[in-house]
């Protein structure tokens, strides 16, 4: 289609959808209203299992299957991106040029922020059932933290601290651990993904049953997965070149 015709088809479609959507939005319960039947069931259920962070309870207990699927999507796309960005037979990875080691302000900031970020990441993973955050958020923070080394200008250090094979294995084990915990629920408590551990005392680090364990598995998978993912993009942008 020509650009013009394409925009005409799109325009007709959008006007139709727009009218329907506005008419539908008029019938949605008032914004900010108090009618949330699912919430009224989910919040007491979470509290009964000593999980103050109801969102975590939903993600790792009540709707844990969604999260299993979500982590599998992440796994699939990390493996998929690795497959799509593998160097082809007509490409090679050029060696990394050693950077000069002048301690600029950015470098210093990068090195200073690195431990802080890693600690924050671990904290977010560990307290996922108590405070905002969890395995996913913490995992991303951990992975991003490691990449502060790239910001600090030391791609070679980053590469040395990043044995990708092991992160690949850690990613697989993290994702597998979630499913295995699900199956253990089946064996131990008669139901897939059943929260089979004692719920503990409300607000304790070791409470809410399997929620912290699942958080840990996800944290491990997400941190390794995002590192592997970003590694592919960094390699493409920095080192993979066509062989002439």
């Amino acid at each position: 289609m020509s650009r013009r015709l394409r925009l005409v088809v799109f325009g007709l479609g959008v006007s139709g959808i727009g009218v329907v959507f506005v008419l539908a939005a008029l019938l949605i319960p008032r914004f900010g209203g108090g009618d949330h039947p699912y919430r009224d069931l989910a919040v007491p259920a979470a509290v009964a299992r000593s999980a103050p962070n109801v969102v975590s309870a939903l993600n790792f207990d009540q709707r844990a299957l969604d999260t299993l699927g979500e982590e599998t999507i992440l796994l699939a796309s990390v493996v998929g991106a690795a497959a799509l960005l593998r160097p082809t037979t007509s490409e090679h990875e050029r060696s990394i040029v050693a950077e000069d080691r002048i301690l600029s302000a950015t470098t210093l900031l990068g090195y200073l922020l690195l431990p802080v970020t890693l600690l924050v990441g671990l904290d977010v993973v560990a307290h996922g059932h108590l405070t905002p955050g969890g395995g996913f958020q913490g995992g991303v923070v951990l992975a991003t933290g490691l990449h502060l080394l790239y910001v600090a200008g030391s791609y070679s250090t980053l590469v040395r601290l990043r044995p990708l094979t092991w992160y690949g294995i850690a990613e697989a084990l993290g994702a597998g651990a979630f499913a295995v915990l699900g199956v253990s629920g089946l064996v131990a408590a008669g139901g897939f993904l059943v929260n089979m551990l004692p719920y503990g005392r409300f607000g304790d680090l070791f409470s809410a049953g399997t929620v912290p364990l699942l958080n840990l598995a996800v944290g491990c998978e997400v941190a390794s997965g995002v590192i592997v993912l970003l590694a592919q993009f960094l390699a493409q942008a920095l080192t993979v070149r066509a062989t002439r």
Partner: protein
Amino acid sequence: MDPSWLPPTVIAIPLIGACLVLALAQHTPRLVVDVAALVTALFTVAGGAVLLVVVGAGRVVTRVGGWTPQIGIVLVADPIGTALALLAAILTACALLYTWRYFDSAEAHVHVLLLLFLAGMVGFALTADLFDLFVFFELMGAAAYALTGHKIEEPQAVHGGFAFGVVNSLGAYFSLTGIALLYARTGRLGLAPLGAALTGRGADVLVLAAMVLVLTGLLVKAAIVPFHFWLADAHAVAPSPVCALFSGVMAPLGLYGVVRVYVTVFGAAVPAVVAHRTLVGLGVVTAGLGAVMCLAQRHLKRMLAYSTIAHLGLFLVGMATLSGQGMAGSMVYLLGHAGVKGALFLLVGLLLARHGNVDEVGLHGRGRADGVARWLFVLAALALAGLPPFGTGLGKAISEEAAERWWLVGIFVLVSAATGGAALRAGLRVHFGLGKPPTDADPDTTSGEDEAQEGRFPARIPMTMVVPVVVLLVGAVAIGVVPAVADRLAEGGRLFVDQAGYLEAVTHGAAATQTPAPARWWTLSGVALGVLSTALAVTLALLAVHGRFGWLGRLLDTPLRTLHRAHSGHVGDYVAWLLGGVAVLSGLLILPALP
């Protein structure tokens, strides 16, 4: 013993297997990876088979995590969903066996992605939660985009994967918007709780708009016109064993989703006649367009892809009857089609491996020495047209009976004849060198000349590549000759369209009422119509091989060119059609359903 542990186990097997393969892949030889992946797929097949037996003519309901349907996620295995999960597992096993000698690279990416893809398909077929359906939809998608673009040395492959990814993702976001609207109205996410909440209130614009949006993503997956563009591109470029999965089970799962969601969620709120009329219309248009485009291809995988689109249209017509019989007919047809079409894709993969080419013209006569493969190709082409006793023929016969109206029966016969004829034409030209190679090249179509080599030009065809073809064809015959299959699916069809029974089973776990569905089997007219479409296909193929279309060919030239040009491979075009399609769908479903 309570069988509720089985459905989640069947989802978990390929998932855990994929993680194991990925962990192993880094440090073990290729053979270990091949065996581990294949064993995982076979375990999933076994799990699916056991589940199918346990489900019987009822439903197995699993409350994941032990939560009630209002709080947690529920899995419901019924005969039709389980049959589709089993089909996905069998096709994945075939694909893994076929890839054993197919890819040179020692990478385990394909194995892991295929197993994750399988987990997504099984989850999609078994879940009874609308948001969970979206999650598994995306899981299928993520694995499928990467598999489509896997041949990264080939320009068309990455382009096709990209178009597929964009269109499918946007379709999924429309679905999610619909889910959000439904949640705003009802505060529920489970299919059964949603259905219960919408019962007896009638449908207003909010509910109808939500329905249109939710169905959009599923129709994109099912490649129904005008959401079908991605399918031909993706199938043309994906590795052949992956195509067998896409055509055989991924796209049909989209149709499964459409009917599942309509029946369980909207069955009581939206008049059946409105849904019926719209879906039949979409099915007829899809079948017709797919058949025409199928005949107009020279790229063998694109030809098979359009034939899949045509068949998806036919399945939708059968399912749109919203009757047990129509559902059963479509399912038998779908299973037979998966075997036949899978075999055809694998045979084309063999051509690609042996000759480095999938162009009907360029391969003219070059497949004469392919031994058993050339006879299998002709047989599969005839089966595609509906030759009894293949499952395709039986499914077509049952669907025709369910469709009732004579003109719909005519469409079934013509469309299956056209797709079978196109495949037969290619087989006769490539494997038997019949007719003269055509010389005119249409600039608006893709030829298959520059398709990248898959595999490594084996001098002899390896057994690992022939066995899956034979397995698939034997399976397609078995579906047509083992009465238990059609019987079980007849039961399944009846359960599938029974909204009240589904809601009852999820909320109270009550067993299905045991009124046996009438058995569906070959009838005299069914056999006759199957033979008729096969004969038409043969006639069409012979005419086409010898180029005898004369004035008809000249008359069709301009419209064909326009059609070719509309399938432009431009992702912006596809999205414009997507939006236009949603608007049309809104018009068809909302206006007549308003009080």
